[in-house]
């Protein structure tokens, strides 16, 4: 308690001290006067003998203090006062810092939520995706998703593994739910046993799907997602136990997932159990994604080894049918490449986010450089004050600390303001963010983000203060008490720090602008790529599915689809209509299989390259604007007549037969039991997976075929995309007419994914456009800050050199001479900055190579354009103060003295 009493009695102690010291001096003076000295001499002598009174008092007081904290508080008070006295400076500096910190915090919150935070499952680090590749499978190299799992693989892995706690496969799809209100197409996930056990999160209501629900031809059950449950059933708990009709089949609802639950990163409405019938399974059917939870302590490498061990068991246990060799898959070189589930969820977005984080960080540096410049100018004005303080005995450590405290406060206040900006920034980011950004719903400003903000604020505060503090208050700083700031022409030395900062700003601005420029060039390059369809904004697409429980006979399905096409074509404003199994870039999983050509031989007789295959109706090519390169298109009589014909893509024709026309008349089939199909047409290449990816080789089957999937009956495709070309595409009135047209054929058919092709296209380039927008914003910010920096420095030099310029003008220098002189100074800085920036950009832009398309990371045109833009803008920024300099009146300038 002693120290507490001391704190309270301090005022008295201080008073005593002052009085005591005063008494001491008086006594001494009197004694000296008594000895015969004059009073004035005595006073001086007493003071000399005593030493620095103020310092003594301070030292004496310090004995009673918690020194460091109290000095800090004093520094803070002092700093606040200094900031308040300069509201203009404070406002500009604060705003700059706040915008910088706000932007950084916003982007960091996205990086944190998407890339850093563990997935929303317990012990998420144990979760893996069973990714595998098959480098030996011809054609499969195109499939960036690798080789999915087949059901037989799932059973083998689930039953023989040693490394996993649980493991399962899943798939996405769509289904129509009928009997509630109007028919609705819902997003489904199909899960095998093991998936939910691996994810290990409790349901919100009811129970999870279990092994008992996975029995083929057993009870039909289903789970609802939280969102769908809220939307369709208003969160009614009694829904558990009720039946809903999914794809025309009643299923009992057993439970509801908890809020925000996603299967890996798939948001869905309804979860359906996969009920594989083991007796009918073959080796093939690689259509499922695998997810698993490894046992504690098992590494990815060990898990991979475990899968590799089981592959021979798989080939020994199953077959593809009589006469086939189950071990031919050895030539595919199937290699497990298990990935942490988080990587699977994040996908390729991490490149974008890190690039954006890096650029925003650079913007922050540019902003800091600007504020540092402001501080430098201001501290120059305060030199007098600092000199006085030094003369009064302030140590340099104390002064440096004082200045740092001031700048750190600036940083922290900017940080607080920035956090508010970040809140708005995150919303903006989500608004312009790529729609397929994973974990979108998890993005928030959490404790870690706020910690980042505080650190950034502290760091930038220190960074801001360091240069001015060391330069003007640090050891060896030459502080002169000068009278009235009558500086001679400023020395080079004094401007060096500011010039270096401006050069740095120009360099960083160049890096950012070059990155933005490269993205613009990428975007341009993407726009020039022919995607394989034309005039996307006038293409209306929609998915319609006709479940087997609704219409059983395949031919009926095609008749209904044909009828819908006719109704669509008859809708006012529609030029033509067609259907396809899926449009390019729609993002639905495509089908692929080995495709054999009759006149080619394949090793092992089962091995043929894997090809993507699709189904198209007559009239589709014309509707989509996809060019027919050679031959002819399907007709309805071909289709209904089940004529064995096929069309192929141009690249497939060239690869197999050399030219498109050489392909005509050749024969293809998918598997040995299928009749040969004659190639009647060759279609231009289509950028199936987005314009960035090369066009895959595609086989186009007619929408109704014999012996499809080995069945005896003719088969049709039940879920297809309808395409209609119309000037009215996308308008509400048009969509209403389209719905009526479909429902006039069958009122139980829901329409899903109703979009224009332009939306599909935009979504497929969303990653690029998002990066472009972000880099554009960052580049623009850096450019503006850089210009302000140059302008500020040049203006300041001009005002400092007023006298010199006045003399020059008085001695007969012309206005243009002065302008040239000042421009030269600006040009020097800009050129130095551009040179350094080009060097830095050459080093940094390769980091964004994965985001570029059709342009190299060192594209000379972009570099040249950005460099000349920067120099031009820099010169413009210098020109204004330079003009002002020529208007200096020599008389006035000299009279200032």
């Amino acid at each position, binding site marked *: 308690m002693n120290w507490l009493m001391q704190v309270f009695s301090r005022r008295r102690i201080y008073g005593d001290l002052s009085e005591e*010291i005063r008494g001491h001096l008086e006594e001494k003076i009197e004694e000296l006067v008594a000895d015969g000295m004059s009073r004035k001499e005595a006073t001086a002598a007493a003071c000399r003998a005593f030493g620095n009174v103020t310092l003594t008092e301070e030292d004496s007081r310090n004995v009673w203090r918690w020194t460091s904290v109290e000095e800090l508080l004093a520094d803070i008070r002092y700093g606040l006062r200094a900031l308040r006295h300069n509201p203009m400076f404070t406002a500009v500096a604060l705003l700059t810092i706040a915008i910088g910190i706000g932007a950084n915090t916003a982007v960091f919150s996205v990086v944190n939520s998407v890339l850093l935070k563990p997935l929303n499952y317990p012990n998420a680090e144990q979760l893996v995706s069973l990714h595998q590749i098959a480098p030996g499978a011809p054609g499969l190299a195109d499939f960036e998703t690798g080789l999915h799992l087949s059901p037989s693989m799932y059973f083998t892995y689930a039953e023989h593994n040693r490394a996993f706690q649980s493991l399962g496969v899943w798939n996405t799809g769509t289904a129509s739910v009928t009997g509630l209100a109007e028919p609705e197409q819902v997003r489904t996930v199909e899960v095998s046993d093991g998936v939910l056990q691996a994810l290990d999160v409790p349901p919100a209501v009811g129970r999870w799907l279990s092994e008992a629900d996975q029995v083929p031809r057993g009870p039909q059950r289903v789970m609802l997602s939280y969102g769908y449950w809220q939307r369709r059933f208003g969160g009614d708990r009694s829904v558990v136990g009720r039946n809903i009709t999914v794809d025309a089949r009643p299923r009992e609802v057993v439970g509801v997932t908890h809020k925000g639950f996603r299967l890996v990163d798939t948001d869905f409405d309804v979860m359906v159990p996969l009920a594989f019938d083991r007796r009918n399974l073959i080796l093939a059917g690689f259509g499922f994604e695998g997810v698993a939870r490894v046992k504690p302590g098992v590494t990815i490498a060990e898990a991979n080894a475990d899968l590799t061990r089981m592959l021979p068991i798989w080939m020994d246990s199953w077959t593809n049918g009589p006469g086939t060799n189950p071990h031919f898959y050895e030539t595919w070189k199937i290699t497990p490449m298990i990935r942490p589930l988080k990587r699977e969820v994040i996908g390729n977005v991490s490149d974008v986010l890190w690039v954006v984080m890096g650029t925003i960080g650079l913007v922050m540096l540019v902003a800091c450089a600007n504020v540092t410049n402001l501080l430098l100018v201001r501290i120059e004005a305060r030199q007098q004050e600092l000199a006085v303080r030094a003369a009064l005995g302030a140590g340099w450590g104390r002064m440096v600390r004082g200045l740092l405290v001031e700048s750190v406060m600036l940083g922290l206040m900017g940080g607080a303001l920035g956090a508010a900006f970040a809140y708005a920034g995150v919303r903006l980011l989500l608004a312009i963010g790529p729609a397929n950004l994973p974990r979108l719903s998890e993005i928030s400003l959490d404790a870690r983000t706020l910690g980042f903000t505080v650190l950034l604020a502290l760091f930038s505060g220190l960074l801001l203060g360091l240069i001015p503090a060391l330069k003007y208050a640090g050891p060896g700083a030459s502080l002169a008490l000068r009278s009235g700031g009558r500086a001679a022409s400023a020395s080079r030395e004094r401007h060096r720090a500011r010039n270096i900062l401006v050069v740095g700003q120009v360099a960083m601005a160049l890096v950012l602008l070059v990155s933005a420029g490269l993205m613009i060039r990428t975007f341009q390059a993407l726009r020039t790529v022919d995607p394989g369809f034309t005039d996307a904004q006038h293409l209306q697409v929609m998915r319609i599915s006709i479940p087997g429980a609704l219409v059983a006979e395949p031919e009926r399905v095609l008749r209904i689809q044909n009828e819908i096409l006719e109704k669509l074509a008859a809708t006012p404003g529609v030029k033509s209509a067609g259907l396809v199994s899926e449009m390019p870039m729609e993002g639905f999983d495509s089908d692929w299989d080995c495709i054999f050509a009759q006149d080619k031989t394949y090793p092992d007789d089962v091995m043929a390259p894997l090809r993507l295959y699709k189904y198209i109706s007559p009239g589709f090519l014309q509707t989509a604007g996809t060019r027919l390169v050679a031959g002819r298109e399907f007709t309805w009589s071909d289709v209904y007549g089940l004529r064995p014909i096929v069309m192929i893509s141009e690249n497939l024709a060239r690869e197999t037969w050399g030219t498109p026309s050489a392909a005509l008349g050749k024969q293809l089939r998918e598997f040995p039991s299928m009749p040969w199909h004659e190639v009647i047409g060759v279609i231009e290449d289509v950028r199936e997976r987005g314009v960035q990816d090369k066009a895959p080789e595609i086989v186009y089957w007619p929408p109704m075929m014999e012996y499809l999937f080995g069945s005896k009956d003719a088969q049709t495709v039940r879920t297809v995309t309808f395409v209609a070309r119309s000037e009215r595409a996308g308008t509400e009135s048009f969509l209403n007419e389209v719905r009526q047209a479909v429902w006039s054929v069958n009122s139980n058919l829901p329409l899903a994914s109703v979009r224009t092709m332009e939306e599909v296209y935009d979504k497929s380039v969303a990653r690029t456009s998002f990066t472009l927008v972000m880099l554009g914003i960052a580049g623009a910010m850096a450019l503006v800050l850089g210009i302000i920096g140059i302008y500020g420095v040049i203006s300041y030099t001009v005002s400092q050199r007023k006298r010199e310029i006045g003399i020059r003008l008085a001695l007969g220098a012309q206005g243009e001479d002065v302008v040239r002189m000042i421009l030269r100074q600006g040009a020097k800085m800009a050129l130095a900055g551009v040179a350094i920036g080009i060097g830095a950009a050459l080093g940094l832009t390769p980091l964004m190579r994965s985001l570029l398309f059709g342009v190299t990371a060192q594209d000379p045109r972009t570099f040249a354009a950005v460099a000349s833009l920067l120099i031009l803008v820099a010169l413009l920024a210098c020109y204004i103060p330079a003009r002002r300099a020529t208007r200096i009146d020599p008389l006035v300038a000299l009279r200032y003295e």
Partner: protein
Amino acid sequence: MKTREQRDLFPGALEMMILRTLKRQPLHGYALAQHIKRTSNDLLQIEEGSLYPALQRLLKEELVKAEWGISSTNRRVRIYKLTAKGAKHLEHEVSRFEKMLEGITRVLAPGES
């Protein structure tokens, strides 16, 4: 401007001298300064001011206490007095100092090695 180290001879020396002086009789600051100066024959260049921080330290550690009173020249002054704790501390310090001094003297003594 001298730094504290220069003023202080070696750490604790000034305090020791103050305590020793106060042991003889209670004094106020000025008298204390004069006494130390006089008895040291002005050999120690001590700024008078440096006395006060030292006094504050001693006060804080309760080695001395201070009271306002009237000096012989009829001034209102603060008179410092040694406390029991201070006396003990002084003894301890002096013996420590003597040992140190002895050591230093031996090392500095010529001809013995």
